[in-house]
């Protein structure tokens, strides 16, 4: 029942939308595809759904060539980023539409529609038209339609991207329950938000410029990002990446005082490296290197302070909401024991250890 992609390539007007994409999608697991906008996530979903062809590569399901299967026989449901429903049908008929196409009996249709509308919390909205619903409710209808069929493949293309953040938070929590038991369904979920991928994914695939850069469990990808690009995609705000040197037992980062090499970097040969440090591992302190605040963002319950130290930009994440004025001079302190080391091509060399009390989450 696996869905396997091998070396999928698609170039449109000279731009690679998919480049050598190979992946195996397994039933019963939620695959979170994370990447920035235009990374090729949507294209990948459209290829899997059969809405888009490829230049080369293979797609197989149960050993059969899936590329030759037309859309309407792929046993696939999809939820779009925009809230797409049939405008002329009410909520009940929207959800019933694919079931009727599948030729189910009336009673069975009614049972399934009622059931899936209840699961998304829209039991009382059966006779409303989509245009009479809020954005969040419309997206729930789309979700109910996708779930009601119980298809073998369920594709979700940034389903929360167009919702208010409070609603996004709420639905994200609900998704954890909704998708916790997917039986034999292959679920693929795209997102631009690291927290969403981490929280929902059983498997995380990191995409960038049409390529899959890394595949693994959320923990693996987050704690061992294969390259600097992965490191910046899987962190929000993106991981601070800067150049530094290791030499004679000291780490030197431009502008900062040299510090002792911490244990996890000790066995690296001397030389120039790219270092990564999460925004949570840079702190504002009373002593340290001075920088100027260029911008302050507040996201949920965190304050992100953008600081320029000479030419190097840093993002500092502080818990809670704090008033920091633009143009202020602040002092930064780095936590050397939390440095990720990459070589000059950006390939991961060493990671800080997380094995303190770590227990597999969930």
């Amino acid at each position, binding site marked *: 029942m696996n869905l396997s992609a091998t070396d999928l390539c698609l170039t449109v007007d000279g731009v690679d939308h998919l480049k050598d994409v190979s992946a195996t999608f397994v039933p019963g697991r939620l695959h979170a595809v994370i990447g920035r906008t235009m990374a090729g996530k949507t294209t990948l979903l459209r290829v899997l759904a059969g*809405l888009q062809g490829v230049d080369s590569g293979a797609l197989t399901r149960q050993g059969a060539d899936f590329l030759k299967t037309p*859309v*309407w026989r792929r046993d696939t449901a999809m939820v*779009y980023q925009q809230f*797409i429903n*049939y*405008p*002329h049908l009410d909520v009940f008929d929207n959800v019933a*539409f694919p079931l009727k*196409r599948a030729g189910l009996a009336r009673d069975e249709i009614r049972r399934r529609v009622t059931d899936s509308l209840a699961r998304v919390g829209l039991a009382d909205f059966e006779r409303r038209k989509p245009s009479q619903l809020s954005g969040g409710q419309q997206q729930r209808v789309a979700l109910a339609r996708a779930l009601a069929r119980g298809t073998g493949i369920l594709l979700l293309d940034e389903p929360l991207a167009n919702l208010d953040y409070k609603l996004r938070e709420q639905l994200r929590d609900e998704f954890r329950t909704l998708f916790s038991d997917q039986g034999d369904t292959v679920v693929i979920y795209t997102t631009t938000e690291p927290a969403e991928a981490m929280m929902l994914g059983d498997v995380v695939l990191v995409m960038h410029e049409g390529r899959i850069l890394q595949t693994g469990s959320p923990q693996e990808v987050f704690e061992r990002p294969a390259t600097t690009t992965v490191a910046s995609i899987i962190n929000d705000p993106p991981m601070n990446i800067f150049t530094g040197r290791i030499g004679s037992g000291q780490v030197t980062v431009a502008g900062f005082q040299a510090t002792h090499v911490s244990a996890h970097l000790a066995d690296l040969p001397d030389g120039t490296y790219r270092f990564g440090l999460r925004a949570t591992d840079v702190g504002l302190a009373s002593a340290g290197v001075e920088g100027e605040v260029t911008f302050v963002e507040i996201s949920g319950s965190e304050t992100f302070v953008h600081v320029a130290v000479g030419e190097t930009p840093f993002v500092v994440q502080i818990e809670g909401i704090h008033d920091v004025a633009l143009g202020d001079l602040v002092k930064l302190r780095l936590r050397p024991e939390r440095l990720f080391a990459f070589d000059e091509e950006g390939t991961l060399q060493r990671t800080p250890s997380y094995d303190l009390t770590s227990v597999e989450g969930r």
Partner: protein
Amino acid sequence: MRSRLYPVFKYTMIALWACFVAGPFFWAMTTSFKDVNGVQGGATYLPWLQYEPTVVGWRNIFGGAGGVDVMRPFFNSAVVTVAASAVSLVLGSLAAYALSRYRFKLGFIKNSDIVFFFVSQRIMPPVVLVIPFFYLLQWTGLLDTVLGLVIVTVALLLPIAVWVMVDFFNGIPREIDEMAMLDGCGPFQTFVRAILPNSLPGLTVAAMFCVVFGWNDFFFAFRLTFTEVQTLPQAVVALNSSIPPWWTLSAAALFGVAPLILLALRVERYLSKGNLSGAVR
């Protein structure tokens, strides 16, 4: 312009134009209740005050002695209009859907060229087409038949249907098609079950244009049908060619344009909602 004079200016202009627009109808209406006495003395407008109204004109067109029968031409016009419009709408919607949703490429010919081919047929003057059509219908035995007239009228209406519908379909998100296919509909089912039900405003506008241009066609009917299948415009114009019994002509003319005026009253809201705006851009 925001001065107090602006409303005066505005409603004066509206009123003047309204008089001009309504004038011919008023004239036809008042004339249709005249007889020789009401006409011969020069222009008169108000019944009872200026002339003695009669219904002789109206009686004439409904088979009164010495008049003409308009019911048969009316019926012919209706059949030709409805049939040609229906064929054009069906074929036009299908083609428009294809042109809106799929990419065609045949050498240097692309979608926009095909759309242009359809729409450009409106440039053909009827008089250029009518001679070849005459011989074509003569050879196929369709001259002076409803079927023959329907076929050539489709050539007039199909471009209109394609023109309106391509732009209307372009305004419907493609994701709806994709969703329907994912939901198990083949391409044809997708069109019928997901797209057509959402196209009623567009179909209404297209249908209205087809009916208007179909009903109002004169030249094809004039040269390709004679005695068997006379259409309403032909019948009215035939009245005009003889020494004008103005009252009969007026009554027949009003009878001939009435159906579409009623149609205009019904579909106005579709038209002004801006459903056409896509087609114009």
